[in-house]
């Protein structure tokens, strides 16, 4: 059982499944899933992602950015817009935004939505699963000493200036004979308010070997993934950080 915080830094928790299809993507799947879950997730929305590609202009000389739109993804939100289900071609995601409740509540929700999807879409298997906890830690000051708060941060050679404005560190740690990987990313991000320092701590546990678990073993995989994330989170923060989150003892 992990530590409990009154003011946890979690801004989003999500579980994502990428499936190996049995047949070409059936566009009626999101609609059928919506019928099954609409009591809990009544607010539907279509999300069209955009990207920017740089292509030569008409004269063939000038490079100009162009908008490219991605395949649409259906999003089904709960009434309070705190949790949602996303469905796209061979993709299912269950997201929980702030305020995050508990793993005891989030895990059954993931399993329930996954169970509904499997019956409807009948995929051949799971290509990838990820359980991800995204944390945002705000400091009401411009400058902090990272080592006071964290055990995980960039290491700068001593003959270089030790003050830096932005950083981004990522490591990938293999788990379970490299079937899974835990990607720990720690970085500065855009603060929402002036005179605030915002840090992003992203813990992303991913099953990277396709079809390496059978579907009925998903509850065990989720439990392992959650334990690994929880342990990593606690290992990376110090008591000064726990004080910010107001640990409940």
């Amino acid at each position, binding site marked *: 059982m992990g530590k409990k915080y009154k003011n946890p830094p979690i801004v989003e928790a999500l579980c994502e499944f990428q499936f190996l299809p049995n047949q070409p993507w059936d566009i009626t799947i999101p609609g059928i899933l919506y019928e099954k879950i609409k009591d809990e997730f009544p607010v539907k929305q279509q999300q069209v992602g955009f*990207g920017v590609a740089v292509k030569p202009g008409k004269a063939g000389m000038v490079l100009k950015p162009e908008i490219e739109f991605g395949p649409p993804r259906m999003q089904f939100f709960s009434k309070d817009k705190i949790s949602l289900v996303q469905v796209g071609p061979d993709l299912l995601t269950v997201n929980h935004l702030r305020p995050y409740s508990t793993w005891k509540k989030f895990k059954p929700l993931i399993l329930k939505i996954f169970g509904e999807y499997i019956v409807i879409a009948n995929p051949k298997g799971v290509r990838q699963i990820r359980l991800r906890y995204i944390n945002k830690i705000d400091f009401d000051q411009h400058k902090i000493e990272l080592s006071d708060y964290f055990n995980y941060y960039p290491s700068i050679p001593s003959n270089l200036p030790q003050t830096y404005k932005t950083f981004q560190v990522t490591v990938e740690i293999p788990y379970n004979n490299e079937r899974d990987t835990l990607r720990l990313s720690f970085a500065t991000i855009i603060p929402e308010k002036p005179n605030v320092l915002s840090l992003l701590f992203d813990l992303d546990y991913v099953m990277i070997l396709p079809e390496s678990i059978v579907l009925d073993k998903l509850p065990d995989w989720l439990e392992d993934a959650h334990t690994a994330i929880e342990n990593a989170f606690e290992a990376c923060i110090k008591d000064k950080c726990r004080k910010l989150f107001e640990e409940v003892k």
Partner: protein
Amino acid sequence: MQLPSQEYNQSITEYYPLYRGGSVESTIILPPSNFSRNFEKETSIFLKKLNDIEQLKSLYIFENSEEIKRFLLSHDYLIDCLSEAYDQIRGIFEENLIEICLEYDRDSEEDFEGLFVTIKTNLSPEPSLDLLEKFDDNWWLQVDFKIRSLITIMVRPV
């Protein structure tokens, strides 16, 4: 610490657009496939918002980057509109478009804050204004008033 070279699969580039924050000013042009992979794959609502703001930097010259980003974080419904606006402006000004600038401004006396889009064109003032009028009639005036009240679009012959 162990880092076996044969097992070192660099993946940090996948994170590039997400976490570039603070005041670092740089433009990194990735091949189109990188962008596609990025926007298709991101399933985090929180990170997608940051990602989309970064993508806008490929379209607009950000005059005061930190302020623009902060404003867009709290008014995220403007993000899609700004990407669509870029497409519409390009479609109308075509080869006469030099660049499009984006600036955040705040007037506390008027109790106003918002974004200013400046279309820089190589046309003289009169045809520039004609094209801006065409842009208004074709698209901008159909955009939700809530969005139009926070974004001002201007044209500047240079």
